[in-house]
């Protein structure tokens, strides 16, 4: 059987999910190359192709109308499009500016009005093209990506969890952040990461987005009552990585 042709593309992001690809080590990475052929990956390759590809892995958000054409070209060439990493899957941290109106002035001051600084709302790439699968997370979990690729290469449907991060903390035996006098939004966050953040002593901030139908009102109430957040802070907490998934998303 011919190896699946895989290509990597990047849009507005930090490229940290690409870097995760280099962390598999020699054995796992070279084994992966026994099953897929990487035909395009600008950050590490000068080779390019115009040929059809089996799987396109797209990183980064859709933030400029000018990028729509490049996304459409990728879609036209690829049998399967995977949005990998929070920026591509949900807009991720880039969407944290979507509710603001003065972000250009804040960063560029008097130059803010220059036309080339144009930036629209940060959106998932699914706002421009059809996406078949998402690898959530900031950064993505490199082993989840492998699992999804492996499923696709074996004609199986990948399973993406739709239960909250709290389930994984219980499974790990991690003490709840609220018990430690902290806050957390793992109650509404999509699991699948293995809950490394609470295990490392910091709150879950829902970088994988929300479970379906998150109870936003209850989340706010818990942040105010249990974590003693101000109304304003409780209201905006879940914007950090999941602004586009909130019911007030613009």
């Amino acid at each position, binding site marked *: 059987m011919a190896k699946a042709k895989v290509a990597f593309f990047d*849009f*507005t*992001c*930090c*490229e*940290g*999910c*690409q*870097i*995760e690809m*280099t*962390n*598999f*080590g*020699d054995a796992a*990475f*070279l084994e992966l*190359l026994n099953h897929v052929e990487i035909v395009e*990956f*600008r*950050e*590490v*390759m*000068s*080779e*390019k192709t115009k040929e059809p590809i089996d799987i396109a892995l797209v990183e980064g958000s859709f*933030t*400029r109308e000018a*990028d729509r054409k490049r996304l459409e070209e990728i879609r036209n060439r690829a049998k399967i499009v995977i949005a990998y990493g929070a920026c591509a899957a949900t807009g*991720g*941290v*880039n969407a*944290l*500016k979507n509710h*603001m109106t*003065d*972000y*250009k002035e*804040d*960063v*560029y001051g008097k*130059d803010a009005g*220059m036309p*080339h*600084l144009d*930036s629209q709302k*940060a959106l998932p790439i699914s706002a421009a093209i059809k996406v078949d699968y998402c690898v959530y997370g*900031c*950064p993505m979990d490199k082993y989840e990506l492998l699992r999804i690729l492996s499923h696709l290469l074996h004609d199986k449907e990948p399973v993406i969890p739709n239960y909250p991060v709290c389930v994984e903390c219980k499974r790990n035996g991690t003490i709840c952040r609220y018990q430690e006098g902290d806050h957390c939004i793992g109650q509404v966050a999509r699991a699948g990461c293995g809950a*490394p953040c609470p*295990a*490392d*002593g*910091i709150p879950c*901030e829902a970088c994988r987005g929300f479970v379906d139908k998150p109870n936003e009102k209850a989340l706010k109430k818990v942040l105010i009552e249990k974590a003693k957040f*101000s109304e*304003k*802070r409780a209201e*905006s907490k879940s914007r*950090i990585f999941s602004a586009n998934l909130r019911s007030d998303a613009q």
Partner: protein
Amino acid sequence: MKKDININVHHLTRVEGHGNIVVNIKDGTIEKCQWQVPEAPRFIEAMCRGRHYSEVGRITSRICGICSVGHTLASVKATEAGLGIEVTPQTKKLRTLLKHAENADSHIVHVYFLVAPDLFGAPSVFPLIPTHTDVVKRALKLKRLCHEWGSAIGGRTTHPTTVIPGGFSKLPTKNDLEEIKAKIVAAVPDLAATLETIKSVAGNIPAFDRPTEYMAVCSDKEYGLYDGDVQTVLPDGTKEKYDVSDYRKITNEYVSPASTAKYTKNKLESYAAGALARFNNNYDLLHPEAKKVAAELGIKPICVNPFMNSVAQVVEVVHSVHESLRILDELIKDGIKEEEPIKPTKFATGASAVEVPRGILFHEYSYDNEGMCTKANCIIPTNQNHANIQKDFEALVPKLLADGKDEKQMELTLEMLVRAYDPCISCSTHYLDVKFVK
């Protein structure tokens, strides 16, 4: 013979982020010679406003996935300066160890995966897998080691979890440190092999000198990375120190009509940041093993060939490995003390400078009395190098023309020059995306 040359490299490969090279030569006259940066702006600093001080480092970390450890460290250091927090010696030591892991990690990726293909005459690392299997395996092994080394301290290497204002949310155990030490010790022979590999292809590094100013973090105690003041060195060896809080005066961000990126300058028309700038400023404080490697690779301060930045990175990997083994021995001997993160004593403005793999990085934040951020500013090394790259282009293109290089050779040399700086363009938070008339 008068030549026509047209180079138009759109979205240069094997660099982080998006950059273009445009050179137009007509009848032997250079009409245009530009390094352009069309990266999409992200406005991360604006996003920090209204965020609690405990959250800010996790937002600015996302400026760059490759230097996310350095961004996190610069962020918590600036926040700590603003909040009147003095961290413990143990915290400083662990953070320095983490910083070494990141520098070694990023340099391995740059030297092996981004630069080496040019020196081996390959378009990427992939064709080298069958022809240079051991080299590729060694690169992947070293990359994995640095990832495990950083994760042992920071929780993970892409957007670390445990580094928080005041200290650490979770400390490594003595056992963790012993394990990582054993892995680093086992990798020392791979450094010798790396040196041999680089020596075998070093003859392909272009000879090109252009004296400039070099800026780096500088400390009396150690080769400046995590801790210290700011220093610059001029080609004649003149050094000057600056206080971190004066960072705006020494970076002088300005807009040039000829450039896509915001430029910076200090004493000269541009300055350089990165491994070569650190090497030129802080050579005396390198570990003896790193000095040996520098001698073998034929690099000594003040080196003014920008292509040698990749060689300085190899020297730094050796330094980071040996210096980290020393720090690890100290930490293992003393044992890890359980320490609660230090609490804020005030809410004001604070700045920091930390060396990330690509050079000196500045962060600054202001906080209100609730500990919420009111203003953030980050000046990233790649931004500081854009002007220097442009000035290199302006000196290098006439030289290549005079040397009789053809279009393909010129294009490759310019690509190699940009790659030598190891630019991290999605990091470059402040730039202006100017469209050029074609």
